Each structure stands twice: as C-alpha cells, then as structure tokens.
C-alpha cells in the first residue's frame, strides 16, 4: 500500500511525541505526567507504523500504553502524592543536570551531522504483509534462547515485585 502524506504524519507524530516528553518532565501532578507519557507512547506507535513495523506498533500499544502505564497509574494512586505537589519540583543540581543533558544532545547532533553520509538510503524492502510471520520465525529461530530468558526474566520480576510490595513477607 502506497504511503500517503508521509511528511505531514511524521511531523505531526514526532511533534506530539516531543510535546508529550516535555510535559512528562515538567508537570507537577504525577497523573498529568503519566497521561503525557501515554500520549508519547501512542505517537511512537504511530511512528513505528510509518517505519513499516506493524507488529512492534501493536506490541507497543498493548504492553506499554495498555499495561505499563496502567501499572504506573495504579502506583501513583496508591502512593497519593498530594503533599508532593506543593514542594519544589526540581532538585538542587538542576542546572548541572540540564547542562550535562544538553551537551549530550550537542554530541548527538555533532555525530549525526558528520556521519550523515554513512546511512545507505536504500531501504530494505520488508513486505509488510509478512512482518508478523517473519518476526515470529526469527523469535523462535535465531532468538529462541533470548526469548526463553525473557520469559524467565518476567517470572523473576513478577515474584520480586510481589515480594517487595507485600506488607509482611
């Protein structure tokens, strides 16, 4: 299927992502930050679709926006951060942190400007209709070991989270 209005959608989705990211790090109310993060995650799913990665987009929506963010919202409600909203939001080293992060950003810009010639602009033609099947074949073929270890990791995480959040072990 031929893509339609690609620059418009790219700029709109990445604009939403950046605005969401800015709102996450600047809001006083943690619930508003969580909602802005949901906006960022959904915009990112849209960008994955534009990169011809429909399966990763679906996984992003199900796991990230529909799972992890619900977990965050639950914990925010449990922890009840009313008092936190009235205190100072940024810590004492905010200026140093900001300068460090911006210099990291400047380093990224320098790398991209110099290395622009390194990206081959031929795009591998990944037929979109076979994306899920191909990823399935790779997950159960090349990356079988990592797949099993990931499931073990999730089991350990579940047990750990349950033990840590219990009142009496």
């Amino acid at each position, binding site marked *: *299927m*031929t893509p*339609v209005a690609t620059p418009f959608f790219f700029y709109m989705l990445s604009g939403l992502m950046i605005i969401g990211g800015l709102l996450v790090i600047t809001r006083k*109310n943690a*619930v*508003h930050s969580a*909602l802005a993060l*949901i906006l960022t995650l959904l915009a990112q799913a849209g960008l994955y679709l534009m990169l011809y990665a*429909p*399966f990763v*987009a*679906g*996984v992003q*929506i*199900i796991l990230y*926006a*529909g*799972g992890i*963010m*619900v977990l965050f*919202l*639950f914990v925010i*409600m449990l922890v009840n951060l009313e008092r936190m909203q009235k205190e100072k939001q940024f810590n004492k080293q905010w200026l140093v942190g900001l300068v460090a992060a911006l210099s990291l950003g400047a380093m990224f810009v320098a790398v991209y400007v110099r290395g622009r010639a390194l990206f081959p602009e031929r795009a591998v033609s990944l037929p*979109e*209709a076979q*994306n*899920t*099947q191909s990823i399935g074949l790779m997950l159960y073929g090349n990356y079988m070991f990592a797949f099993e270890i990931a499931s073990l990791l999730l089991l350990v995480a579940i047990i750990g989270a349950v033990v840590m959040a219990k009142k009496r072990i």
Partner: protein
Amino acid sequence: MLNYITSYLDKNVQVTPGQAGNIFWALVYILCVFGGVSLVVVCMNWLERKILAHMQVRIGPMRVGPHGLLQPIADALKLILKEDIIPEGADTVVFWFAPLIILLAVFSVYCVIPFGPTHAITDMNIGLLFMLGVSSLGVLGIVMAGWASNSHYPLIGALRSSAQMVSYEIAMGLAVVSAVLMTSLNAQGTGTLSMIGIVQAQQSQHIWFAFKFFPLGLIAFVVFAIAMVAETNRAPFDLPEAESELTAGFHTEYSGLRWSLFMLGEYAGMIAVSSIATTLWLGGWMRPFPNLLRGAAWDMAFSLFPALTFFGLAGLTFYGAARMAKTSFFRVQAMGLAGFGAVLGVIGLILLLPPVRTGIQDIYWFVAKIAVFLYLFIWYRATFPRYRFDQLMKVGWKVLLPVGLGVLILTAAAGVVTG
C-alpha cells in the same frame, strides 16, 4: 474528484476502502458504522429495559410512546438538558478527558470489524493485535475517571474495574490466540491476524472455528464469551458499577451528557466484543451451512431471511397495535405503532428486491449473530447474581487462565497432528 469517488465503485474492487487508499469511501463507511452503532445503542436501551422487565414478569416502560418506544429519546433529551456538575477538587482536565478516552478506545475497534468481505473500514495485517491493544486503552479511561472524581466510591470502583478488566484481558488474549492458531491450518501453513483473513480461513476450511477440533474450539469460544462479559463490566461481573454496591462506581460523579457518554461507551463496547467473537468463532458474515446446504435454491431461501425478519417485526407491531384499548388516548398510540409497523413492512419489501437482497446478505448475517450475543448479555443480567470481587478475580486468574492455556496447547497439538 468524481472519478476518485466512482473509481472505488466501478472496478468491482475486492478490497476495503482503507486498503484501496480511498479516503472518501473510508469516511462514508466510518459514518455508516458510527450511525449504525448509535442506532443500535438506542435500540439496545429500549430492548434492555423491555426484555429485563418481561423476564422479571412485569412490563417495562409503556408510557412514553406506544409500548415505550420513545423512551430512549426521552432519556437522551433528559440527559442532555441536565446540569453538568463537576465535583469540587476534581481535576477538571482529566475529568473531562476520561469519557473521551473510553469512547476513542471503543470506537477505534470498529475500524477493523468486517461486515462483509469488502465491507470494513480497513483491513490491517495486524487487525486482531490492533483490536486487543486498543481495547486495553479503555482501562486507562476508567482509571482516569475514578481518579479525577476526587471521591472514595469512584476511586475504589475504578481500581476494581480496571483490575477486573486487566485480568480478563489475558484470558481473552489466550482464547484469541487459539482461534488464530486454527487459521494456520491451510495449505501454506501460515496463519493471519487480519480479521477478514480469519473469516476467509473459516470459509476455506468449511467450518466455523467454534466447532473445529470439537470440543476445543467450543471451549475457547466459551472462554472468550465469559471474558468479554467481564471486559465490558456487564452482569454478572458488574460489581464496580452496580448501584447497590458502590453507588455506581467510577461514573458516580458524572451527570448528564458525560454519563450518557459512559453508557454509549459501554453499549458500544458490548457490540464491539460481540462482533469480535462473531468474526473469530461464528464465521463472521457467512450464512449458516454454506457447504452442507449449497446450491442456488438454498442461497435464494437464505437470502429471504432479512425480509422475513422485518415482516415478522412488522407483524408483531401490528398485533400490538390491534391489541391496544380503543379509547381516544390509546387510538393515537395505536396509529403511531401501526405507522411504525408500516415502515418496518416497507423496509422488508425493499429487502425483497433482488439487487438489495444479494447485497445485504453479509451484513444481515453478521448483525443477526451480534443480536444473539446482545440478547445473551441482557439475559445474563436478568438471570445471574453478581460475583463478589474476590470470586471475580478467582474466576479470572484461577479458572479462565488455566483453561485458556490448556485449550491453546491442545489446539496446537491437534493442529500438528492433523496437519
């Protein structure tokens, strides 16, 4: 411009408007789906009250129109004209956003639901994954609604409701994966996640997936049917929003039009999950027995069903009109009811015309199967007592999840053995 519009009609294209890239017809389909869902929600409102009443040996609303037919309109008017109260201390932005998020999540599911081989808004390759993901966004709306109300009952109701929805989503996902496994039993050995592809797989394998590998398909179907009732917060899993438990749960503090948005979201969610169940297990738009009773005569017989349905409804309406008392008050109502019956009869006659008759087949059978599910939803509400919250979570995690896993493993084994 006109070329753009008619190019989709002319070529007898075999794809949905989304796949053809035709934005105009995609918008037309979206408007049709939206209008259809709204109409069905209005009918469901009336039907629920009447059917619940008749099951409880009483008659429902009779006052507003003949046999209460104008009751939903009166309800809608009342809700629109009510005062819009926002509780003090409530987070206004989040309070305003919450019903919108639920509606967005529910209505986005309709983008992939196929009413026919080309009658869908679009057909994504990952249609099923999209549907699962977007319906899990509804949980966020509920959590936001409960939090933003700044009150105890909505918060507890929201947390309970979201815990319930998240638990039953897992059982739903496992049942859905069992159905997807069955689509891969074709010549190439590749399954598909696209909704139209799943119905076409049922068509090519000559069996509805509910009856495949008996009883595995049936168990998966039953697991999904139970999980979808819990997913939409309907009885008997409606603890978070029942009136006698938590004073209406997460939508306690919502009044007027906002509350009607929640109700619209709930009914639209019921229709959405019913259509998912129909597509995955009951053969989607296929008529019953397409292979056992094949041939032109049987096709013609089955194609008369839409018209017969409407004639039946018109007959019931005329019967109700004839039974009304003959005083002047009721004469007006009887005339209104007879007029309604006449409209139904005219629609039935239109559905007898050959070109309409063949075009409406797929949509009719799909809607008929959804109607069966909606009747079941109302029947459950009238019949079953409510689950307590710990019983509800126990059923979700300790009963449906192991059964879903078992069905998945057995389906995979059956597929390998027969393949």
